[in-house]
């Protein structure tokens, strides 16, 4: 039996290393290719070992492409998304769980509906609405002027904010908070707002951090919506800019080292975030399941 255990463990270890290799190999190849010259790569294929051109290629990403300003856009959009979701879903989930609404279930169902149909599926009409967000009000006969949020930071973030996942997660979390806490606060003469601020918020910090990390990563890695909702290069997000870099070669041969340098640069911020805030990310993903 001892023998089968060690052989089992050996196989487990083998599986894990294979998994790690599968995850790291593409990233490693991207980074190594980014350190070679375009001519070398076209001649001898992808690179497994470092070359002398990494700094040069990264500098080219910063001088020859719009990736830097696009990374700033990604940062703004991801932060807006994450902060917006944290605040709105905290308020919404609080009202749903602690304010005894008679039609709470209806509100919840309304918001839950958004989870089933993400923006990627309904991108065509969402684009039309975003290019004229006052239309529903105009349809109601209100005297409003037209406002287009296409190609703006806020327009890039809004469809992700108007989404129920955060509310759903926090609601599940709030329901695990003992109601006695609320009752005790009430007994001490605290109002709902006071309870929310002094008791619930500190308690929710880990959950909010988890939500924040998850939504920030989502905001950074979104593709279809930013692709259609931003038209100018200076308003595109980094991921869109990277994809355009790969397809807009025009009549030049593909510059793989530049692309790989850009891919590495674009993924640097979220990967650092993951490395540092690993705990929260894992907890956030686990929370989605509950």
């Amino acid at each position, binding site marked *: 039996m001892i023998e089968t255990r060690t052989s089992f463990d050996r196989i487990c270890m083998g599986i894990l290393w294979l998994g790690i290799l599968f995850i790291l190999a593409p990233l490693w190849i991207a980074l190594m290719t980014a350190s070679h010259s375009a001519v070398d790569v*076209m001649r001898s294929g992808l690179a497994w070992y470092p070359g002398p051109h990494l700094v040069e290629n990264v500098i080219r990403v910063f001088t020859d492409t719009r990736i830097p300003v696009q990374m700033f856009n990604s940062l703004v959009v991801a932060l807006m998304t994450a902060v917006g979701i944290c605040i709105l879903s905290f308020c919404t989930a609080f009202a749903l769980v602690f304010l005894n609404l008679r039609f709470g279930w209806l509100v919840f169902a309304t918001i839950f509906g958004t989870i089933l149909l993400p923006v990627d599926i309904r991108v065509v009409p969402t684009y039309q609405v975003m290019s004229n967000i006052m239309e529903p009000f105009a349809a109601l006969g209100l005297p409003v002027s037209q406002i287009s949020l296409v190609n703006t930071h806020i327009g890039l973030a809004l469809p992700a904010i108007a989404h129920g996942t955060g509310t759903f997660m926090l609601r599940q979390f709030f329901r695990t908070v003992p109601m006695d806490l609320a009752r005790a606060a009430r007994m001490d003469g605290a109002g709902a707002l006071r309870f929310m601020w002094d008791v619930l918020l500190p308690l929710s910090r880990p959950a909010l951090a988890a939500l924040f990390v998850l939504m920030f990563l989502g905001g950074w890695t979104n593709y279809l919506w930013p692709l259609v909702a931003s038209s100018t290069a200076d308003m595109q997000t980094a991921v869109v800019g990277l994809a355009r870099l790969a397809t807009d070669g025009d*009549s*030049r041969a593909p510059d793989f080292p530049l692309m790989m340098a850009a891919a590495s640069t674009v993924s640097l911020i979220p990967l650092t975030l993951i490395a540092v805030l690993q705990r929260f990310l894992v907890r956030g993903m686990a929370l989605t399941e509950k």
Partner: protein
Amino acid sequence: MRFLTPLAALAMTTAAHATDIEFWYGNTGSNEKAILAACEAFNASQDQDRVSCVGQGSYEAGMQKAIAAYRAGNHPVLIQFFDAGTLDLMLSGAVIPVSEVMPDAPWDSYIPGARAYYETADGKLFSQPYNSSTLLFYTNKAMLAEAGIEKTPETWEEVIAAARTLKEAGVSCPFATDINAWRQIEQFAARHGVPIATQSNGYDGLDAEYVIDQGIVAQHMNNLADWHEEGLVRFDAETKAAKYNAAFSAGECAMIEGSSGGYGSFAEALGADAITVTLPPMYQGQTRHNTFVGGASLWLMKGHDEAEVKAAQNFLDYLRTPEAQLEFTAATGYLPVTQSALDLLESSGRADAPEFATAGPGMETLGAPGNADTRGIRLGFYVQFRDIFAEETQRAYNGDITMDEALANSVRRGNELLRRFEATYAAN
């Protein structure tokens, strides 16, 4: 904040005496730089009007955004649209024909091949041709010479004979092209004087039907499939550079049929002396007609006051000047398209300069005699048809279906689009 721009623009128009207008364009890279330079030059040339030129990232994105902006009523007065969107715009009711607004402008100076594309059957010109290109034939002199070919091929028969020689000499990619309908059927049918759809490619009515499954077009497509099978012709994905024109730049492929706009980067990569640029090949015994103008043109949008329209006209007038056209040509490789610009090029003595190398053959093929079927393409949902054509012929080149099946499928699916387009605009 981007969404404040219309408000800010409004505030500025009322405050200053000058008229500010916006112009949307889709180009990127060196072409974008040339457009911005033209805007700046216009603004510097007078102080009555100011045009701010806003890039939209691509032709498709520009059109999409213009549609949304028009529906919301915050569109600019002047927009650049690409060739394939011509019919959508003509029927949109959102544009004013330039020949109506500016009846006195010298429209006759435009060479017919460039003008007819944007003109209705009864001679109403909708937009002003801007960045104009057409199809040309390029060869890599050194690769041909190495295989013992001295004369630049002129007919398809010669091209394929040269391709066989090149292949025997060990060239892995004798002739490269892509599966785009613009190259494969539009320009091909035009210069052979045949239509791709009835009703003169839709000029004479919305009830047109595709005819690419017959005649010389179908024959040529079958030939391409055979030549591909034989290893003489390669498509984008089969070249190391992943694109036919990049493969030419990299010296991988010996011959291509490509846009006149590509000359600049070929000359930069291989040297202007190392390549030839000539008229696109014909089949032996066929009469050469004009090719279509590709690229994009400038459209005046409805819903703006007189001052703004006047400012847009002034900008159009400026872009039409021979000097501005030559400036643009030199910077981009696009073609000058008025007789006066050509005359200026001739008299300036720069006609032989490398930056104008495409002007000669470009003008010759655009200016060749035409007929009713070589005016242009006037077919609905045409952008979608180009995708269908590419998809179906790709399957034929892969051997999944025969080329005749691919063409029949394209015709069937294309006709469905045309019928739906007809129904969409039936109310007009």
